[in-house]
Structure formats: C-alpha cells, structure tokens
C-alpha cells in the first residue's frame, strides 16, 4: 500500500498482535476461578507506576472511582492515561499527581461544567505531557483492533486534520477504492478499570447502560479490574446470558463496591453528585487548595466506604437515587451566575 501521510505523535500501548497472542496464552485462563478481592488488593496487584491505564465508562459516567481513589491513596506515579473521554477520572488522577502522560482524545474538560483547571495547569507547566492526540472514534477503534487481534483498523477519520498530525496514525491509499484511508494502530492498555451494574465472582459482567467503549476495551486490556455495584450468582448470569457484555476469561479482579462510581453518574441507579463536584472544582482551581481536597477525601479516609460516609452517607445516596429516578430537583452549583 502506498503511504500518503503520517503523524508525528508517539505510539503508546501498541504491541505486535503475535506477541499479544503469546501473552494471552500464558496469562489468561478459561478455568473458572473466584477473582473477588478488595480495592486495595486489586490496585496493588495490577496497577504499577508507569502503567498505561484506561478507565471505562464515560469520564464521569459509570467510572470506577473506588479504584481511582485507591490509585491516589497508594501514590502511584507516572501513569499513562487513555484520554478516551477522560473527564472527572482523568482530571482527578492528574490533580493528585499520579499521571505523566495522556494519550488524548477528549481530556482536560468537564463537559458542560467547563474546562478542567487542575489538569490544564499541570499540562501547561509541563508536569504532564500529551505525546499523542486522537479523535474519540480513533481512540476507541484502537481498542477494537486490539480486541480483534489486529495491528490496526482502517477508518474514514482524522483525514486532513491537525489531530492526524499529532497522532501516530498513517494514511495510505485504500487498495479497493484508491482513495485515502486512515490506519489506526491497535492499543493494548496495561490495565483497564470498568465499573458495572452486576457481576459474578468469576467476572461475568452485565451493564444496564451505554457500553461506551467497554465492550472493546475489556478485550484489549492486558489486565482488567471489574468493580461492581452488586455480586450475583453464575446461575443468574446464565439465565439472562444476553445481558452479559464481559465474559470471565478477560477478567483479572472482581471488586464489590456499592456506589463505587460516586460522585459520578451510574445510569439507572444514581445521578452525579454535583454538589460534591462543585466542591472539587473549587478546591482544585488552585494548587494551594488542591491538597486540601485530597487530604480530606482520600488520604484521611480508610477506604471508599469511609469516603461515602464523609460525603453524606445514606442521605446523600438517597438523594442521588431520587435524582436518577426523576423524584427530586436538579441543581447545578458550578454554574457561573
């Protein structure tokens, strides 16, 4: 194929598929094994300094906040984060000083809440770098390529843009149409963390919401930590097997964490805690007050349950459940008047 163009971005998380096939044969097993463990154990075992980490869900929707808190508590350093719609999760890890690089599509923003000041400050001062940029479509198709055992996927995307220039993607002539086509390299994150509605002890997981990229990401990541609102039996999984989106053989750890996405939204269960997010935005707006937030909510709490008590316990959870079912009034405390 005739190469027409290529970007100068750094290629992160790519392996030759043959090398990965070998790795899978050595490290993944079809034997049913109880994989339940604590947040602390899963984080210690599978998330190392310098790991390439991808957080499932959608940045502030169905995010595994319990693991993200533990990463901060354990003071992990120089993580490479997939900015695959990195929102609260990404900003939180950067603000806490755990991140070295962002492989970025959407990052450094909090959607309707505005720009993410903490992570922008770190990027602007050079403490965090962005070695590659992607479109959201490109970044998620990197996981699809990896999940399919391919070194790349072709796509009609990024062509003619500066995003392509800042990515390591290549443009070639499509041998069938003779038109330019973008080749999107695979991405195998070292570890993915995905929060689900229910799961059995082996890792068979069901999600009652948009899958976002998790259907592909679960199969692309070398190590996969599932956090779950509920543990159910394998019988229940088998009764409604059509709801299973992640089968056990991809999963390395199963962690039971009710309300484990707080302050983010868990569709059909609880809405995002905008009061808490407003406090986070206010505190992390300046370096001097950022540490106050992390001291209070992460370093001085023993675990995620302790943190949930601190943010309002049962009353707060009830309120967020009411919001999700449309039985209470929405508030947007971060709106500038």
């Amino acid at each position: 194929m005739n190469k027409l163009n290529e970007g100068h971005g750094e290629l992160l998380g790519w392996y030759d598929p043959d090398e990965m096939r070998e790795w899978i044969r050595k490290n993944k097993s079809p034997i049913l094994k109880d994989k339940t463990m604590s947040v602390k154990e899963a984080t210690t075992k599978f998330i190392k300094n310098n790991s390439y980490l991808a957080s499932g869900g959608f940045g502030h929707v169905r995010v595994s906040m319990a693991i993200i808190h533990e990463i901060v508590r354990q003071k992990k350093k120089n993580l490479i984060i997939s900015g695959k719609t990195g929102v609260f999760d990404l900003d939180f890890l950067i603000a806490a000083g755990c991140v070295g690089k962002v492989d970025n599509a959407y990052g450094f923003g909090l959607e309707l809440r505005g720009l993410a000041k903490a992570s922008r400050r770190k990027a602007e001062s050079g403490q965090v770098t962005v070695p590659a940029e992607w479109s959201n479509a490109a970044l998620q198709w990197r996981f699809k390529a990896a999940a399919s055992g391919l070194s790349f996927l072709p796509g009609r995307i990024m062509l003619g843009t500066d995003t392509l220039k800042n990515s390591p993607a290549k443009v070639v002539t499509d041998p069938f149409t003779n038109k330019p086509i973008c080749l999107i390299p695979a991405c195998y994150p070292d570890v993915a963390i995905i929060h689900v509605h229910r799961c059995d002890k082996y890792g068979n997981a069901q999600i009652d919401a948009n899958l976002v990229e998790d259907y592909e990401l679960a199969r692309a990541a070398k190590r996969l930590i599932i956090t779950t609102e509920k543990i159910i039996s394998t019988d229940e999984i088998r009764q409604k097997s059509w709801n299973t989106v992640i089968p056990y053989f991809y999963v390395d750890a199963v962690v039971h964490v009710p309300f484990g996405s707080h302050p983010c939204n868990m569709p059909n269960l609880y809405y995002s805690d905008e009061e808490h997010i407003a406090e986070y935005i206010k505190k992390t707006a300046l370096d001097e007050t950022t540490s106050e937030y992390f001291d209070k909510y992460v370093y001085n709490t023993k675990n995620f349950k302790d943190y949930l008590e601190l943010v309002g316990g049962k009353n707060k959870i009830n309120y967020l459940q009411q919001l999700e079912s449309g039985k209470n009034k929405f508030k947007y405390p971060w709106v500038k008047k």
Partner: protein
Amino acid sequence: MKTVNKLYNITEMMVIAGSRLFENGKCVVVGTGLPVLSTLLAQSTHAPQLVLVYEAGSLAPLKPPTIPISVGDSMASYKAIMTASMDYTMSFIQSGFGELRQSLLVPLPGSSTFGSPFPC
C-alpha cells in the same frame, strides 16, 4: 457573562442560532457543550421529531427531565430507543447515517461552557 443586549447574552444567542439550523425529521449527532442545549431547544420548539444521537451510544432519546451534563449521562439516554456503544455510533456516522452534526470549535469568550469539536 458577556451580554449582547438586555434581552440575551452571547451564549444564549449561539444556542438559539444553532437550534434554527435543525430541521424536523432529520438526524443529528450531538457534540458536548452548547450543541446539547441547541438541539434540545430545537426539539422543544420547531423540530419535535429531531432524532438525536450521542457518541457514548444512545440513539433517539426523548426530551429529558433536565439538561444532560454529559453526552454520556442518564439524561442523554432518557427513554432512548437503544443504548449502544461508541463503536456503534461512530460506525453509524461513518456508514452515512446522521445528516447533521453540531459542534463548537472554541470556548466562547466570557462563558464557562464550551463545546469540543465533534470527534469522529
């Protein structure tokens, strides 16, 4: 917030101008930020049958009880026909569905709200 005149500010003007671009019965792929507001405004006024698609995976949701904060949150998939995935919605666009797209390239001056370029 910067005001254009006493009746509306610059953000409101952009939202209304954007909403007028949407024809009833078309399909629009909605990016985050102001596009969420202008498509919901269009759906609430002249284009009740505007079909929305959000990148996180929701297809044809109905008008939610409140404005979505994220294009992937529960309000962006309120009573949707299907909650799919990003692979699904990006493939949907790549294969030719969705006549309209709205995105904003830059933060608006004086506004805390911004929209990112539509990512496909």
